[in-house]
């Protein structure tokens, strides 16, 4: 009964999404007064749709919780012995379930626009809701037609086929929700862009409404990508954190454009410039999110973790992609020229630096796009099987990122409209000198490799530039300390968030550069053997058999020695999950916060020697600390009073006053 209820709720949600995508649009076309009734259907339909999708999602989760194996989806992806946490998170650990999560998050966004958007102009809100309704309609249709999660099977199997063991991990259990929150969140900015095009008007208030949504989506996407790379680091056992795999790139591309959008929306808000570009960015960001969904689910790209290899689904998503991207771009071509440009500025100014930021981010996104999709086109056009691997991305993305990171330090110090570059640089003199001294000492005394040295120098530059910006704003050292403290407390949160996020990029970069100098050792060890990696000495004490709830395996014991004393024990494992007949590697990581000691065991040869791989990864934890801080910066900025969703109310009344007077 419960699965049928879930299925029925999903169908009702589809119908409501249909209502939501048509009636408010018609109402908005009739005008603010005559269409008021039709426009009022928007919020009700959106909230109804949200409740029904939530009910449907709950029904699916319920089926997982009680292990109802008469549901095909539960049978294929769950097992009665699986821990409860993974039964629940397994709901979205497969294609069908993750689609329900996708539409649930979209419905929540719609509901939030309906609930919190009371201060938006009525026609704009109606149009935003209509566009969101159309997207929801497409994806609900996709879920119901090609990936129904509630399909029953008969006879009912005795037990399930279990979840892919690699997904039975907290890192991956919570990675998809954040990623989807990010992907789907960009739909709101997209809907705002489409609505503004239909409306034919983009102003500062529009920038003010779009930015919090973009910021929220960006935070979620940042956390989602961070969780994914953290999971790859500690669970896959290969010691790396970023593989430039097509599926990873699929999430990186919208992140790069969302970052650009975040910054260009500031220009729209403050200066009413870059309107057309910002609209285009909003459209492209969501298009890349859709493209990511398509790449991951269609199996067209050769990736280590593309799932759901099903051509029928691929074609359906490709059609959705074509309608959404094609439709919005046609709308853009038709309406964008009508948007009136405003706000002049000189090339050297805050706006100018934000244009540069957008240009470099868009360029890096373009090269990642080419590298990710070229194999697909090469296969279709020339029948050549090609891989574009890390060397390509390192060679193309690094040169674009270096100027971006250098400029990132300077940009926030430039004033709006017209700036004196030399004055800004003079304020950064101290930071630049420290970075230069560091680079010279590092290359001369520590490590001669150029790329990691450059990474460390840029990381230091970003942190120092952010600190300089902060010190300048609170007039540190020029006024009494108490006054500086008062100023710091009075700083707008948006500014604090920006400073934190920029410094966080530096911290993340330091972690990546640290990974670049990390030594690794792969060696054969017999019990009693001693080896070294980085500053550490380790003794291999042999292996033991271990048993878990739904797996069995072996555990290697490595003792960390310091001056001959035993300090700690590392226990890397190899697990075997009998239901899925699959093995996994569990790395053992000992972290000091400044560096990770990372151990993996491999197979044992006939003469009793085990392959042991050891990494000493200086600063590696900073990669994820940096990502979390970046998202935190976004959240601080999001909590700014001026950005609060209710805040534009007063401004709108002011903006509407002259219009009312003219009528």
């Amino acid at each position, binding site marked *: 009964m419960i699965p049928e209820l879930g299925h029925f709720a999903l169908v009702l949600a589809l119908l409501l999404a249909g209502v939501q995508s048509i009636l408010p649009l018609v109402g908005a076309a009739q005008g603010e007064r005559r269409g008021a009734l039709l426009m009022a259907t928007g919020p009700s339909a959106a909230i109804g749709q949200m409740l029904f999708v939530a009910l449907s999602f709950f029904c699916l989760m319920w089926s997982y919780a009680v292990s109802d194996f008469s549901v095909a989806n539960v049978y294929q992806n769950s097992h009665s012995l699986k821990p409860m946490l993974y039964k629940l998170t397994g709901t979205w650990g497969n294609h069908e379930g993750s689609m329900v999560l996708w539409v649930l998050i979209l419905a929540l966004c719609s509901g939030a626009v309906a609930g919190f958007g009371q201060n938006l102009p009525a026609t704009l809100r109606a149009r935003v809701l209509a566009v969101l309704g159309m997207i929801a309609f497409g994806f609900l249709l996709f879920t119901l037609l090609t990936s129904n999660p509630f399909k029953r099977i008969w006879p009912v199997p005795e037990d399930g086929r279990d979840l*892919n063991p*690699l997904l039975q991990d907290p890192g991956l259990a919570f990675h998809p929700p954040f990623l989807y929150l990010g992907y789907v969140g960009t739909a709101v900015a997209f809907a705002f862009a489409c609505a503004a095009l239909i409306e034919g008007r983009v102003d500062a208030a529009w920038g003010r409404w779009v930015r919090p949504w973009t910021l929220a989506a960006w935070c979620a996407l940042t956390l989602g990508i961070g969780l994914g790379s953290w999971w790859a680091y500690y669970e896959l*056992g290969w010691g790396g954190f970023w593989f430039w795999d097509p599926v990873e790139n699929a999430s990186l591309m919208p992140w790069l454009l969302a970052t650009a959008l975040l910054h260009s929306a500031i220009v729209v808000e403050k200066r009413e410039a870059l309107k057309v570009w910002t609209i285009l960015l909003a459209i492209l960001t969501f298009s890349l999110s859709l493209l990511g969904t398509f790449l991951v689910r269609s*199996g067209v790209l*050769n990736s*280590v*973790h593309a799932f759901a*290899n099903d051509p029928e689904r691929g074609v359906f998503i490709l059609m959705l992609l074509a309608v959404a991207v094609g439709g919005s771009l046609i709308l853009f071509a038709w309406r964008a020229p009508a948007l009136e*440009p405003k706000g*002049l*500025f*000189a*090339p050297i100014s805050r706006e100018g630096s934000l*244009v*540069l930021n957008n*240009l*470099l981010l*868009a*360029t890096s996104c*373009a*090269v990642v796009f*080419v*590298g990710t999709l*070229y194999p697909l086109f090469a296969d279709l056009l020339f029948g*050549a*099987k*090609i*891989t*574009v*691997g890390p*060397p*390509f991305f390192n*060679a*193309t993305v690094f*040169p*674009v990122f270096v100027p971006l990171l250098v400029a990132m330090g300077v940009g926030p110090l430039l004033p709006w409209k017209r700036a004196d570059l030399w004055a800004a640089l003079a304020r950064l003199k101290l930071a630049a000198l420290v970075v230069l001294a560091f680079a010279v000492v590092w290359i001369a005394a520590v490590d001669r490799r150029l790329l990691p040295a450059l990474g460390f120098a840029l990381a230091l530059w970003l942190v120092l530039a952010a600190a300089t910006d902060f010190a300048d704003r609170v007039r540190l050292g020029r006024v009494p300390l108490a006054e500086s403290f008062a100023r710091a407390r009075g700083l707008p949160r948006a500014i604090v968030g920006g400073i934190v996020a920029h410094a966080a990029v530096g911290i993340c970069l330091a972690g990546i550069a640290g990974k670049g100098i990390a030594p690794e050792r*792969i*060696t*054969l060890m017999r019990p009693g053997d001693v080896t070294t990696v980085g500053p550490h000495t380790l003794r291999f004490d042999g292996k033991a058999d271990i048993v878990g709830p739904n797996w069995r395996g072996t555990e290697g014991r490595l003792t960390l020695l310091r001056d001959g004393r035993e300090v700690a024990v590392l226990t890397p494992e*190899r697990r075997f999950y009998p239901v*899925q*007949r*699959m*093995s*996994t*590697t569990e790395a053992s990581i000992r972290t000091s916060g400044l560096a990770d000691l990372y151990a*993996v065991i*491999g*197979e044992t*040869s*006939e*003469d009793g*020697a085990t*392959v042991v*791989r050891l990494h000493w990864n200086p600063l590696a934890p900073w990669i994820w600390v940096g990502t979390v801080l970046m998202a935190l910066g976004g959240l601080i900025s999001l909590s700014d009073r001026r950005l609060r969703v209710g805040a534009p109310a007063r401004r709108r009344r002011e903006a509407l006053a002259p219009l009312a007077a003219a009528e």
Partner: protein
Amino acid sequence: MTRKRRRLWIVLLCGLGLGSAAALTLTAFEESLVFFHSPSDLAAKNIPPGRTIRIGGLVEAGSVDRTTTTDGKLQIAFRVSDGAASLRVTYTGILPDLFREGQGVVAEGMLTPDGSFRATQVLARHDETYMPPEVADALKRAGHWQPGEPPPPARDWNTLRPAASGGTSRLTN
């Protein structure tokens, strides 16, 4: 600064961005595209040793051989076959969890002058029932696997020969 001049600035900047991106992409492509070849491709084409390529097929049953090299590393040797030709592959390091005889595998590395393949990386998939697309393609081209059928069982794999020409031949060139 007039509107026209600002536009000129932006157009120039965009041109510069696009131009450098294109230049970067092209030079990087030149050096870093990795082509995939099946073992029978390698037998037919003349690929010079030393160029990074990917190969793939099924790991022949009974061909996996582990030896310890003089400098204390575990060297693994195995044969990768697409049913029409097979190739000896050597690799030092930790094999992926799903590496197994009869399983689809993709290896990146280069040919050595003695005609074997020195892998720098061995990739196997997350899912046991999953077949890397290149491998599936190579098998189909060698005439051993029809879409919709499960791949032939591992133990038969090293005794398979190219499909006999006749009614069921799927050898296409």
